[in-house]
């Protein structure tokens, strides 16, 4: 197992790389081999560049999380589109401070990205002490509700996925 970790320090990354290679080059035996070689070599080569990446502990949860996010993106997109095209006087933007429970940098970044990807919210800043995330919302009625929703829909699953 130790040897395996030495060869594959980040198995999930290797998997993504391998899969990406196959996507690009086609699903043939030759490329499977070549992709595998790259999937091993690239993480090894770039290893010094990322210390302390948390491991994915809960794969099913991750898949569920992805589905939720994609769904949110589609739905929120439509609603935001309507707001953008509608009368601008009705929108009520706001800066919202989100207290962070996540402690891992990677997880925080992922959360920030997710918030930005879903239309209507952009993560504007992370406090230097990494305890608070500043989110700009395009149209927010109830700040507390928004915070709660983000925490429940995105932060919680991430916490579970990385167990931190």
């Amino acid at each position, binding site marked *: 197992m130790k040897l395996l970790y030495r060869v594959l320090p980040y198995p999930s990354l290797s998997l993504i790389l391998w899969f990406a290679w196959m996507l690009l080059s086609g699903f043939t035996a030759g490329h499977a081999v070549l992709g595998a070689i790259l999937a091993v070599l690239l993480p090894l080569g770039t290893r010094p560049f990322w210390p302390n990446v948390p491991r994915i502990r809960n794969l099913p949860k991750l898949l569920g999380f992805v589905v939720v996010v994609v769904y949110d*993106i589609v739905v929120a997109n439509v609603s935001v589109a309507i707001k*953008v095209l509608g009368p601008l006087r009705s929108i009520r*933007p706001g800066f919202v401070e989100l207290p962070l429970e996540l402690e891992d940098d990677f997880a925080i970044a992922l959360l920030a990205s997710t918030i930005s990807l879903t*239309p209507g919210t*952009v*993560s*504007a800043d992370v406090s230097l002490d990494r305890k608070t995330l500043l989110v*700009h919302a*395009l149209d927010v009625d109830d*700040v507390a509700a928004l915070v709660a929703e983000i925490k429940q829909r995105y932060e919680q699953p991430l916490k579970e996925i990385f167990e931190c």
Partner: protein
Amino acid sequence: MDFLIEWLVSASVIVGGVFALVGSIGLARLPDFYTRLHGPTKATTLGVGGTIVASLLFFSWQERGLQLHEVLITLFLFITAPVSAHMLAKAAMHRQLKRMKGTRGEPWKQ
């Protein structure tokens, strides 16, 4: 079947185009930088997404086999676009750009 695929492709392409436009309308129309920042998200997600789906379908149909490499574009965009938005928001807050009237909360000064 061909018709269905063609229809789907057409629909996806149009959806992509529409959302790209909507995003840009937002960019052009919204009153302050922070609200305008939300525009490109549309282009990033459903805009490009729509065209990607169309492309996936189209080429898979043309070449009679699953063609998924366009997915990578989405993957990369999903990784990179939030970072640009984040950095731009930081830049705007640093410059203390004006907020539209009625904005709640305060931008940070870090």
